């Protein structure tokens, strides 16, 4: 987790342990801890709708982090992440409803199930790269989607399946406010998991495979193993995210887990920054709040004179959709390295102000 950013004066490190922390400085660590604590009080302050958005950020964020480990860190590509997300949702619903496994166990189990499925479809990943792999994972997307529609015993077919709310020691997390804490815990846990993964042996191996696979192999990193494992871990994250989604809504249907969702996950990590954990979160937050922000703008527009022109009123919904596309294109052109890169740039600017270097 080392980087080139400058450390403040007087921040001396006297042990390797201090040099190996997740956060660069103590200040950043305290800011992170305090913001998590602050987030714990969010249900008391903000309204219910905002809480649903935060929950959305949590489960999408977990899944997006999985995709970033695969795409950003290992340099593979997947167009089937939405389907894996869906598989996790159905698997957890199925485990808890049909097999009566308690929900707090079925969520991680669903993660491991999805990991298995992901590794099965990731098998070609050990052999093919780039566009060809994209097509292979596209196949996974459609096969799994088709499976959802046909496997009545598993997914309830076109009717969808019910998912019980999460209960722990007799307490049911069935409201938005209570489930928010589950989602927050899962998010923090999975992100710390991701950070630790990237600063230990296998995380480094992933980056090595991405940066120079020939020399990674010479250094003792088995390419097949790590490409497959990366697929597995990415699907594991997708499965956990999906399972949370299922138990949050209480109902899963196959319509949501389309290629559009997969692409949305890709958009999140590209906007946030490939190969960056904090970037993943930034990208997800951006993508979740963008429609809301646009909604707000549309609302303001409706209040003005423009709101009376029939063409504009009819077109507002489309304008919103188009604006999302526009923002993504804008990002690809102006900030291809994502929000996390921009964040570092801004931080460095202030650190060195008024000198450029």
């Amino acid at each position: 987790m080392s980087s080139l950013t400058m450390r403040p004066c007087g921040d001396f490190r006297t042990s390797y342990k201090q040099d190996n922390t997740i956060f660069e400085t103590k200040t950043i660590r305290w800011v992170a801890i305090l913001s998590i604590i602050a987030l714990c009080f969010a249900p008391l302050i903000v309204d219910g709708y905002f809480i649903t958005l935060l929950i959305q950020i949590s489960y999408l964020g977990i899944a997006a982090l999985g995709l970033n480990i695969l795409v950003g860190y290992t340099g593979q590509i997947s167009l089937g992440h939405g389907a894996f997300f869906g598989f996790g949702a159905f698997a957890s619903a199925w485990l808890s409803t049909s097999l009566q496994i308690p929900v707090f166990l079925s969520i991680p189990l669903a993660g491991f199930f999805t990991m298995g499925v992901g590794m099965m479809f990731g098998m070609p990943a050990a052999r093919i790269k780039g566009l060809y792999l994209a097509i292979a994972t596209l196949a996974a997307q459609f096969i799994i989607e088709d499976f959802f529609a046909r496997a009545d015993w598993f997914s309830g077919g076109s009717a969808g399946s019910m998912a019980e709310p999460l209960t722990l020691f007799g307490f049911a997390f069935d409201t938005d406010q209570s489930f928010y804490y589950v989602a927050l815990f899962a998010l923090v846990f999975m992100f710390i998991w991701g950070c630790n993964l990237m600063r230990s042996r296998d995380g480094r191996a992933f980056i090595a495979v991405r940066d120079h696979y020939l020399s990674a192999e010479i250094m003792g990193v088995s390419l097949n193993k790590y490409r497959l494992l990366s697929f597995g871990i990415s699907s594991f994250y997708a499965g956990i995210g999906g399972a949370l989604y299922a138990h949050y809504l209480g109902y899963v249907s196959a319509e949501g887990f389309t290629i559009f969702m997969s692409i949305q996950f890709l958009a999140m990590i590209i906007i946030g920054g490939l190969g960056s954990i904090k970037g993943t979160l930034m990208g997800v937050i951006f993508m979740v709040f963008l429609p809301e922000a646009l909604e707000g703008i549309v609302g303001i527009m409706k209040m003005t004179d423009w709101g009376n022109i029939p063409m504009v009123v009819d077109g507002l919904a489309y304008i919103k959709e188009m604006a999302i596309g526009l923002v993504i294109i804008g990002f690809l052109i102006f900030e291809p390295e994502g929000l996390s890169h921009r964040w570092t740039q801004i931080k460095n600017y202030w650190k060195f102000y008024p000198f450029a270097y």
Partner: protein
Amino acid sequence: MSESILKVEQISLAFGGVKALTDISFEVPKGSVFSIIGPNGAGKTSMLNCISGRYSPNAGNIYFNNQNVTKLRPNDRADLGMGRTFQNLALFGHMSVLDNIMVGRHHLLKNNWLTGPLYWASNAQKEELAHRKYVEEVIDFLEISHIRKAVAGTLSYGLRKRVELARAMALKPQLILLDEPMAGMNLEEKEDMARYILDLNEEFGITVVMIEHDMGVVMDISHKVMVLDFGKKLIAGLPDEVMADPHVKRAYLGIEDETAETEVEIKEAS
């Protein structure tokens, strides 16, 4: 020096009609510095690729510590204790120097994707820090401590070569394969590199097989030299013997009628 760490038996390698290597056999004594020289396209790098496992030879066997490794994958050879550097830089460009070298510890580390993320609860943190200590020793030895946090892709050529050597050394290899460690370096960097190669050979006891074009360095630091030409072995022996061999002169070092002076120089040097 009597026991051989690497034994190559009648290796042949062909790419379609091009015979890159024909029937090459040699032995590398344990603890020696063994150089492979020869003109461009002679098959030196192909030979190294066969040893490290990037190419699989069409015929012949390679024994490493009396174990047949011909069919092993490159990553398995790393486990056995074989490290290498590349002719064209092959660092992990986006990682820091430190992480690059830590990748070299890959086969010695035990934590995996389940125990690694449980950083504090499992043994992972302790293990990482213990290996970090060894890596720091290597960093110290190669004098790259000032750049340990720099991103590898931003370094200068000479430093990158050194980091690559550090990465190979972190493997704790018994045998290290160096593909043109001094290509493109200035005199000072070359002197440093020669010193490092000698030290890692003598202090760390690592056997070195290297490809190098700088004859001065090769003849000075090698215990044994092998000459390849058009995929065939011309001679293998002590540096002096190789220098004196007429075939080698014709193929690589320079033919007799070039100038009389170089002749004299070579004789004096030997």
